[in-house]
């Protein structure tokens, strides 16, 4: 499993396009929003958690079809399916690799982009924390969506139609926790809910995703 993780990470870094693309997309979104809503610091600071969350979510979405598609096309997914590790483990590792290459850079970069949105120090902290807790769920849910659409030739658009509604609870609790934290209110409940979604997604969705992959490989 570690070998698989290392392989996926190497592929993501060396093949190009996967690793930095999400981050660049995130940057562009953070740059475009002030152009659209105006440069007033108060307005930007108020909508910043929402914008950063939506930006992170879309950046995550961009690279989802890479999780299984390339392996499906060159046949290595078949090999992985017959490998001694269970399919559920493969799915979890691939989601983890997606998180490390997409989610983690976003989490690390979010405070910097927060500065573009005139967030204060408390803002940096809460954006960092909520994204850190929430992005694993985004990767795992996305891996499930990617598993559903892996056999399709033009799955990209369908993938977003399937995955985005599934992202709604994560987005609501993540952005709510960040907003409350920045406003100085108690945000224990949304934070716990966010962590609960992540934990449940990581625990349960590998089973659904590997079921979908087995169906697609049939």
């Amino acid at each position, binding site marked *: 499993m570690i070998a698989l993780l290392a392989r996926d990470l190497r592929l993501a870094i060396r093949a190009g396009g996967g690793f930095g693309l999400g981050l660049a997309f995130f940057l562009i979104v953070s740059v475009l929003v002030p152009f659209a809503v105006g440069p007033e610091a108060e307005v930007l600071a108020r909508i910043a958690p929402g914008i950063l969350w939506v930006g992170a979510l879309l950046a995550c979405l961009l690279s989802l079809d890479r999780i299984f598609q390339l392996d499906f096309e060159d046949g290595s997914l078949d090999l992985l399916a017959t490998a001694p590790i269970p399919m559920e483990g493969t799915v979890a590792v691939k989601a983890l690799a997606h998180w490390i290459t997409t989610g983690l850079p976003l989490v690390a970069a979010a405070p910097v982009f927060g500065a573009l949105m005139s967030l204060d120090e408390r803002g940096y902290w809460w954006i960092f924390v909520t994204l850190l807790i929430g992005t694993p769920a985004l990767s795992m849910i996305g891996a499930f969506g990617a598993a*559903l659409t892996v056999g399709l030739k033009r799955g990209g658009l*369908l993938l977003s*139609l399937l995955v985005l509604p*599934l992202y709604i609870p994560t987005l*609501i609790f993540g952005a709510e926790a960040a907003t409350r934290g920045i406003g100085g209110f108690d945000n224990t409940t949304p934070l716990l*809910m966010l962590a609960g979604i992540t934990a449940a997604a990581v625990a349960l969705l590998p089973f659904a995703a590997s079921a979908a992959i087995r169906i697609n490989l049939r």
Partner: protein
Amino acid sequence: MPEMHRTKQARDRYNFLWEWANPVKFMWFSGLALPWLVAATVLTMAIGLIWGFFFTPEAANFGSSVKIIYVHVPSAFMAISAWFMMLVASLIWLIRRHHVSALAAKAAAPVGTVMTVIALITGAIWGEPMWGTYWAWDPRLTSFLILFLFYLGYMALWGAIEDPDTAADLTSVLAVVGSVFAFLSRYAVNFWNQGLHQGATLSLDQEENIANVYWLPLLFAMAGFGLLFVTLVFIRTRTEIRKRRTHALELRERMADA
């Protein structure tokens, strides 16, 4: 006959319900039941809607706008019930591999979608004079919009996959996972915003629902919408089964030609 190779003993083990999973039997029964269903649907819907629209008093503060309830509440109820029915049918397909079940789930999705849209639109029409806005990010409204998105994704997945069994499998998995997330969204949305929408119009555990003059025709309208749903799903499932059969016949012909 597909029934023949099944022994008596094996047939007894299957309880009564699973008999209808046989396409031949389903076609026979649904063909027999459809005229009655159509008649019952037309009758109850006519009673409910005409009674509701023309023979109920206008409510204080609401005027005649209150009468949209006879479309709004039943369609909203059926929109949720349709998804629930799809979930059950998907589970039956995943566990017991009954083709009729998968096709029924497929057949129910567009009907449920239309019900969701009707509920949203009638709600918007009602909301404009009452709340002063067509749309508010109220939990109930928002959850229905999310439900609509789930329906769209479900149907898009059916449409995208060519192999019918693969499509049935994948959409069933999506229906199961989607149900969990739809449920979760409902609570997330509740948490996110307090709403304008009033509480449940009808519920079993309340002493008093809405006043009796409105309640009875509403009951008829809901029964009518329920019957309409069953009728449409029957018709659509029959069409799906026939499509499968024509497809099989075409394949056989092509094999014979080759």
